[in-house]
């Protein structure tokens, strides 16, 4: 808004809606109110105990000051974008549909290696949602007409396709009320974030993983696509090691010359989490 990339006519302050609680669900999971702050969610004892990957992902993101203010819904809804999005002198299909994409053929080291389109190669920047993807969270909403629905996190964020200006599948006027987590998965929980400095930087590649005693498990990747990236068929070969998983998860990758390094980096980051799981 400060750069006038967005110029909303009205802002609606939702902070006093009573959506700031974390409660157990009837099927053994947790319901996280949309306005629960990142700090409060990461610090919740149930989350630390049963959904450690979520705490780890949140504290790997942004800074202490930002996490104190960021909310569950707001963090999920960070814009998927690249640096050119902020520069009104450059073409960007996300900012101005049809204007072109400055990143394709431009500076793309941080951008998507998979799931991109000829219109946009931006990456989803958030950490929390990558953990929610590995946990199969559901996003609960209420629409302007009062009806509510629950969207699986896998279907919440979009790939750019022909409509890169749309980051997610919310309708106009649809409000997030909560995110629910299913029953705990057990296993060991890991979030490995590789970035250009040790703290307070967006991911080049991140891995959220839950690894079981028998070596099976699941993994979602951040920093690689327009949405948190998880391929269930790749999870199925977890016992064969990281390279087998990423061979499947990144089978149709289309990296640029600048960012092809992300695929071996994803393999190594996953290998590190698997090793961590074994030693835990």
């Amino acid at each position, binding site marked *: 808004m*400060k*750069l*006038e990339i967005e110029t909303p006519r009205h*802002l609606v*302050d939702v*902070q006093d809606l009573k959506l700031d609680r974390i409660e157990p669900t009837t099927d053994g999971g947790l319901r996280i109110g949309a306005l629960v702050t990142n*700090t409060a969610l*990461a*610090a919740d004892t149930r989350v*630390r*105990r049963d959904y*450690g990957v979520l*705490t*780890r992902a949140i*504290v*790997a993101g*942004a*800074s*202490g*000051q*930002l996490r*104190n*203010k960021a909310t569950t819904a707001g963090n999920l809804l960070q814009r998927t974008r690249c*640096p*050119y999005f*902020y*520069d*009104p*002198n450059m073409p960007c299909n996300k900012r101005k549909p049809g204007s072109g994409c400055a990143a394709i053929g431009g*500076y793309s*080291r*941080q951008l998507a290696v998979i799931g991109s389109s000829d219109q946009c190669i931006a990456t989803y920047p958030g950490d929390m949602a990558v953990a929610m993807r590995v946990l199969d969270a559901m996003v609960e909403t209420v629409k302007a007409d009062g009806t509510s629905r629950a969207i699986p996190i896998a279907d919440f964020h979009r790939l750019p396709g022909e409509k890169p200006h749309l980051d997610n599948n919310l309708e106009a006027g649809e409000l997030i009320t909560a995110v629910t987590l299913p029953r705990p998965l057990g296993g060991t929980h890991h979030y490995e974030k590789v*970035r*250009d*400095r*040790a*703290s*307070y*930087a*967006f991911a080049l590649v991140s891995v959220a993983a839950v690894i079981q005693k028998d070596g099976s498990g699941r993994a979602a990747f951040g920093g690689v696509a327009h949405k948190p990236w998880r391929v269930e068929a790749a999870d199925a070969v977890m016992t064969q090691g990281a390279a087998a998983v990423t061979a499947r998860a990144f089978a149709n990758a289309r990296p640029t010359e600048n960012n092809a390094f992300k695929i071996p980096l994803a393999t190594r980051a996953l290998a590190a989490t698997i090793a961590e799981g074994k030693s835990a």
Partner: protein
Amino acid sequence: MMSEIEMSRRGVLAGSAAAAALAAAPPAEAQPAKAPAPAIMPVSLTINGKRRDLNLDTRTTLLDALREHLKLTGTKKGCDHGQCGACTVIVNGERINSCLSLAVQHQGDEVKTIEGLGTPDKLHPMQAAFVRHDGYQCGYCTPGQICSAVAVLDEIKRGVPSHVQADLSARPQPTDIEMRERMSGNICRCGAYSNIAEAMAEVAGATVKEMGA
């Protein structure tokens, strides 16, 4: 993120040049007949223990309300985009970036700024430690660093977890690595980091003793 900062700086410059060009030759359809008057709203906050009543353009950030309207210029504006931490203040006991928050969202809130932590005659222990350890050079980031440092020690005491914690169920301790990680949202272009860490360690040590640990 560095490149994003650099790119967006370029974007800001390019953006303002473009805005100036627009003002010189406004395209007819982009110019509404009359710009609507800004929306003004009353807001009351408690700042450093004193109630303050303001009438603000709803677009005013908490940072601009403090600096421009209340003349509390101790809190600094570095980036205005949540990237540097110079604007850190403590709201209802938690540190936030005041540049990213609209003042009207803080109706009834308790805000503590560097002016409320201590005075030149009666420094807050963290301020005194920064002086003793040379925790600054130009001093521009310092009010934000000090507000953040005070809040960080409180966060550690309250058991808020961090990225460097090995065991999520354990209580965090005020170790050097914990404090450095938690202070990563405060950038110092002069690079006074190691002295800031020493100042914090001194205050944390005193606090730990106080707690009888």
